[in-house]
């Protein structure tokens, strides 16, 4: 019987090793270990054995059974692994083929840059204010120290609706509206559309956007303006960015300045883009004129403030290296899809 068992084991192991599929293995399991299987058949004959032989043979039979089972299991695992391997090979893709187009929309480049500017100022404690686009002459000009017949009106060709109503030429009227409605401390930016009678070309548009900034509090100085816009420039263009203030004239700020930042093309070394200056103009600003504070209902003897304005189109053209402003308003999908 022992010999028989050993023979069965040898034969079974050989068969298992040769098996090709799960079905083969199942057949082998039935053949050797099933109820009517060969090992079982031996075990059934155990009764014929002597009492001394019985445990010995029994143990052997169990060993044989176990050995075959282990082999079967192993073989099952092996076949499974091979099948998986084959499957994976058959599923190989050309991963260089293009992906299926996801259908997300594209944010307009002006909005991308505006969002960034808003986030920066929000982080510096500026709230976002708005004002009407069709505005009174008073808010757009008079209250900003630009009376009728002021030469500065020449430089801002204005679309008029009536004698006193116009399309705002700047976001600065929001300064007055904010001061009228809010007590200092004030820290706001006011982005929005503005309109000037400029014919459309690659650098002009009768419709464009500005972002106004206004800070009013006790003890605000030009050093605060400088620090604040320096911070802004660094957050927008990187830590190494420097700013340069140049005296300028705006009727509603005094002192006034134009603010240049390190040329982002050449890093300040000087290049054709910055005309060798190493700086590019992006902002205008200054200390809010005391009369303008007064016009907004703020006492200039107690409070002072600074204000600034940025052209959103200019920032956007620079950011994306766009050479023609018209593209921003044509909204061709081939353009929008790039952002």
């Amino acid at each position, binding site marked *: 019987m022992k010999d028989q068992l050993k023979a069965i084991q040898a034969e079974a192991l050989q068969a298992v090793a040769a098996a090709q599929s799960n079905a083969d293995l199942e057949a082998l399991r039935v053949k050797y270990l099933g109820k009517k299987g060969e090992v079982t058949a031996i075990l059934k004959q155990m009764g014929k054995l002597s009492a001394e032989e019985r445990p010995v043979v029994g143990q052997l039979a169990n060993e044989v059974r176990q050995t075959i089972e282990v082999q079967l299991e192993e073989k099952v695992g092996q076949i499974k692994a091979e099948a998986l391997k084959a499957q994976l090979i058959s599923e190989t893709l050309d991963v260089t083929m293009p992906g299926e187009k996801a259908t997300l929309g594209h944010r307009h480049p002006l909005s991308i840059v505006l969002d960034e500017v808003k986030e920066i100022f929000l982080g510096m404690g500026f709230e976002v204010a708005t004002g009407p686009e*069709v505005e009174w002459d008073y808010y757009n000009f008079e209250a900003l120290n630009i009376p009728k017949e002021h030469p500065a009106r020449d430089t801002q060709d204005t679309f008029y609706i009536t004698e006193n109503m116009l399309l705002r030429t700047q976001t600065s009227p929001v300064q007055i509206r904010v001061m009228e409605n809010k007590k200092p401390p004030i820290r706001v930016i006011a982005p929005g559309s503005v309109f000037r009678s400029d014919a459309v070309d690659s650098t002009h548009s009768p419709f464009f956007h500005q972002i106004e900034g206004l800070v009013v509090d006790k003890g605000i100085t030009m050093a605060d303006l400088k620090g604040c816009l320096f911070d802004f420039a660094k957050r927008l263009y990187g830590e190494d960015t420097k700013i340069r203030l140049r005296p300028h004239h705006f009727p509603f700020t005094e*002192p006034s300045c134009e603010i240049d930042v390190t040329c982002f093309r050449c890093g300040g070394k000087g290049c054709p883009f910055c005309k060798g200056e190493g700086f590019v103009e992006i902002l205008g600003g200054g*200390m809010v004129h005391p009369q303008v504070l007064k016009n907004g209902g703020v006492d200039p003897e107690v409070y002072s403030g600074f204000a600034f304005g940025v052209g959103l189109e200019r920032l956007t053209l620079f950011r994306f290296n766009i050479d023609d402003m018209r593209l921003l308003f044509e909204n061709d999908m081939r353009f929008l899809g790039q952002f």
Partner: protein
Amino acid sequence: MNLSKRWIHDYVNLDVTDKEFAAALTLSGSKVEGYETEGEELSNIVVARIESLEKHPDSDHLWICQVNVGAEENLQIVTGAQNLKEGDYVPAALDNSVVAGGKKIKKGKLRGVESAGMLCSLGELGLTVNDFPYAIEDGIFVLGEDCDLTLGTDIREATGFNDVVTEFEITSNRPDCLSVIGLARETAVTYGMDFVEPTPVVEPGEGDVNDLLKVSIEAPELCYRYVGAVVKNVKIEPSPRWMRERLRASGVRPINNIVDITNFVMLEYGQPMHAFDLRYLEGNEVIVRNAKQGEKITTLDGVERELSEEMLVIADAKKPVAVAGVMGGEYSGIMDDTNTIVFESACFNGPSIRMTAKKLGMRTEASSRFDKQLDPKGCRTILDRALQLVQQLGAGEVVNGAVDCDCSGKSDFTLPFEPEWVNNFIGINVSADEQKKILERLGCKVENGVITVPSFRGDLLHKADISEEIARFYGYDNIPDRQLAGVATAQYTPEQKFERLINTTMLACGLSELCTFSFISPKSYDKICLPADSAKRNCVVISNPLGEDTSVMRTTMLPSMLETLARNYNNRNAKAYLYELGKEYIWKGADELPEEPQMLCLGMYGAECSFFTIKGIVEELLYKLGVEDYDVEAVTDNPSYHPGRTAVISKDGKVIGTLGEIHPQVLGNYGIGVKAYAAEISFNACFELSQLKRTYKQLPKFPALTRDLAFVCKKSEPVLMLEKTIAQAVGKNLESIELFDVYEGSQIPEGMKSVAFNLKLRAADRTMTDEEADSAMKKAVKALEKIGISLRS
């Protein structure tokens, strides 16, 4: 403003490079746009003398010249010019030289004769006869005595054609800087030098001006001062080179001594002057008055102009001879036979000049200076300067005195000297002494705590203006930067957060954002087929538009969207899914600002796009915005949309928006050759209806049962009505109801349709039984049967 380096060096002693000068002036407030050197491109052209000349043997017009360029040997140069003789000094472009226009000159042969270079005309040097009036246009430039005739001298040096011209952008508040003296003063203060303005001195002449000229100002509110002087026996001739070249560098064409003097003084002091021929001043009289309504004048440019009462004229006893501060009349100018002239040095009301120039459509050099409000105090000095130049140039005999009508009554303007306030306002620490010094150099007087502002600085009106003067000469660069103090807390308003939600949802739905002009053409309303009496045609109208295309503020965003779709279609973009969050403008009359409601406009076309695509997007949007349980109704009478494929969405009677397929006629108007869809959603309605406070619903603990129901109803029956009826009948255990099929065709009677729903039923607290579900279905069927809709058998 173009500034001649030579000229400013007459006033300030500067030893800096042009680049340093440009940078320093820019940083102290006079912005330099650029600078260039005259005749920069010319090279290797020198002064030569014609030693001899002979006819070319093989040509009837060429000359062979032997020229002396100061070298040991003469050079032989062949020329085609006919205006030369022995002993003439001429510009010779030598071998490897460059003449105007960048043309290179090399030695060579002309009809077999060696030529070592080229003799040059004025044009070949980049000059004109205005620069050298004694030279001829077509011929070699024969140098006169006003040139350096040292042989071999570089021609630019010899002719003075090597000035450096710096271009300034002067802001409108500083008309005083539109002058050499103004910029000289700025330069001096920038470099910490004292500046003393020279005082012109007029030598005594003959006679008395009052015998020759009468001046009266009838409109003192428009003319603050008028000073007149007379010069007799005028000798009209070219002005000297130093004057001509300063004018040229400043961009002004030299004409003759008298005209040049007026221009020279204008450039020097910033105030325009005028010279009249006394012959044409009837009654020897100047009257400064308002024009009479309809009065006409032919101006120097030969155009007859009709004047109106608010305009100011310079008139003689009978007629206007000049539009004051804008342009002279045709007989007022200087002619070759002019004998006696009247110099005018006047100061007018700036805004009035500006208005007149604008109304007459003639913005001149003079008007653009006068309209910035010049200084009446300067009139006499400026006149004296002109008279001084007349004497210096020997251009005529100055009659003693000047007729001075001064109505300005302007007294000195003062401001308190508050150095401490300035320091606090700017955030710097500049000593009182230092501040005083800056102000004094600028022409202010500082005494006993009071600043007396010079009359030419009409822009210094407030202590803040003083602070700017201190700051810019202290240097903006030297102002420290300080972090804003105080607590920085800010957040978006609920509306701004809502906007952001709209944007992110639209982008996630695959729509790209647009940015279009807020003004449109009124014809757009025809293009979207609005009826003639539509309220939307009542818009905010721009009174001075650029063109009809951009002449009214839009009352609907649809035209902008359709134009964009059309542009994309024309550019062969296969699909365009777009949105814009923008404004519409609702006219409220002239006494009230228009309403500016924010609107969301969606527009799309493309192969996979249908009515239900855009509706699905709108539904998703409204869900995200927290707008639920709204009504959808078919709209058949919106002229811009397909009458059978348009819906209006509303809730509690409030319209949220319209969506649908664009009417084929409208598509045709825009040249869009495919079906397109649009939606117009009110931001305000959504914002007001939004319920964004979502609460978590427990995930179901018990299984759901599903049932399908199909009904047959009239084709016109809205599915939403069926859905709502079923939902109401089934009650709270209805978890969801979804339309899965709408069928018309065989097995369904004509004019009817089959509508099939999938219902999911679930009880929150137990497992629902089949019996319960069946009974719920029966309720649904019964409810529909009540309104005549039966189960599909």
